[in-house]
């Protein structure tokens, strides 16, 4: 996936593409420059919930095919209820648990004894807006304390006229943010 170090080029008017490009670049910076190990627990949770919901509906489809309505009435009621409850749960999960988090990186303890420190990245970019907000949160593995810093920049600072991402500029911004958190950590 990272074979191409070719510059990312997108349609500069597409808000979705802008945010995805910036998020992907931030992930790459965290993984490569700081040797963090990406944790997929949050995404896996979401994938599991959605998979269960889809299986629910497939099961209902199959059961109704084998035992046509009205014989399948009870099973259908259960599946439909489960499905919509699950979609509710997924919405809550996306809103509160994920809340714009697109990356969780673990900083392994060098001695291998203490639990990992956690670096979380969240971002937001409103529709038709140019203000990209990046928030880095540090959670100490041992201390369990959290510290975070966020920065709002216009996407115009990182993309040129053709929609190419100026990786170096963005890298400097992201690294600057993260290092400021690390500095804080050492000072305290």
């Amino acid at each position, binding site marked *: 996936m990272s074979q*191409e170090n070719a510059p990312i080029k*997108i349609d500069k008017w597409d808000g979705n593409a802008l945010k995805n490009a910036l998020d992907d670049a931030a992930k790459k910076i965290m993984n490569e420059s700081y040797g963090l190990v990406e944790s997929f627990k949050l995404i896996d949770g979401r994938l599991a919930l959605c998979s269960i919901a889809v299986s629910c*509906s497939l099961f209902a489809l199959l059961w109704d095919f084998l035992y046509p309505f009205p014989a399948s009435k009870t099973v*259908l009621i259960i599946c439909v209820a489960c499905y919509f409850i699950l979609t509710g749960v997924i919405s809550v999960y996306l809103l509160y648990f994920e809340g714009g988090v697109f990356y969780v990186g673990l900083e392994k303890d060098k001695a291998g004894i203490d639990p990992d420190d956690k670096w979380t990245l969240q971002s937001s970019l409103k529709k038709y807006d140019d203000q990209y907000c990046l928030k880095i949160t540090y959670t100490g593995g041992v201390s369990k304390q959290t510290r975070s810093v966020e920065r709002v920049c216009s996407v115009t600072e990182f993309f040129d006229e053709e*929609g190419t991402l100026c990786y170096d500029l963005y890298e400097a911004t992201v690294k600057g943010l993260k290092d400021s958190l690390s500095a804080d950590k050492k000072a305290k």
Partner: protein
Amino acid sequence: TMGLLDISFLSDLKRMNKRQVFYQFLSFGMIVSSALMIWKGLIVATGSESPVVVVLSGSMEPGFYRGDLLFLTNDLEDPIRAGDIAVFRIKGRDIPIVHRVLQVHERDDGYVKFLTKGDNNAIDDRGLYAPGQLWLEKGDVIGRAKGFVPYIGMVTIVMNDYPKFKYAVLGLLGIFVLLNREA
């Protein structure tokens, strides 16, 4: 602009990892599942195996026209009465017919048989029933019309007359959902 769109599609998708690709398929699955669950939910709620049907012929004019969408319920406890608009299937054929109940005969044991006729037809439906069949029974009924929306069903009629158009529309929608990466 076509060139830019091509590149933006590919670049967004190339950068996705396995999980994100899986999520694209899951999102598609969720949309299909939601539609499916709403449909099955309607089936259970109305008691009818086909709660929404399209009027296919002009045999019920001026009440219903070809292309009208009908909403059905199938309450088996509610007795069938002359004047009800029933949607039924003749055994051995899948096309549902929407006509009015003309005559009803009830026995003390609860057995009901009835005759139907389209408002706009000159004769009753005996010509449409299966050979030797003179009456319809409760089991033939998919439901009775409780509400309708005019014209909208024309889309279904067009899609069934031109199946290639239907597959093209569905195919395009599917591709759009699969390739559209959410933030």
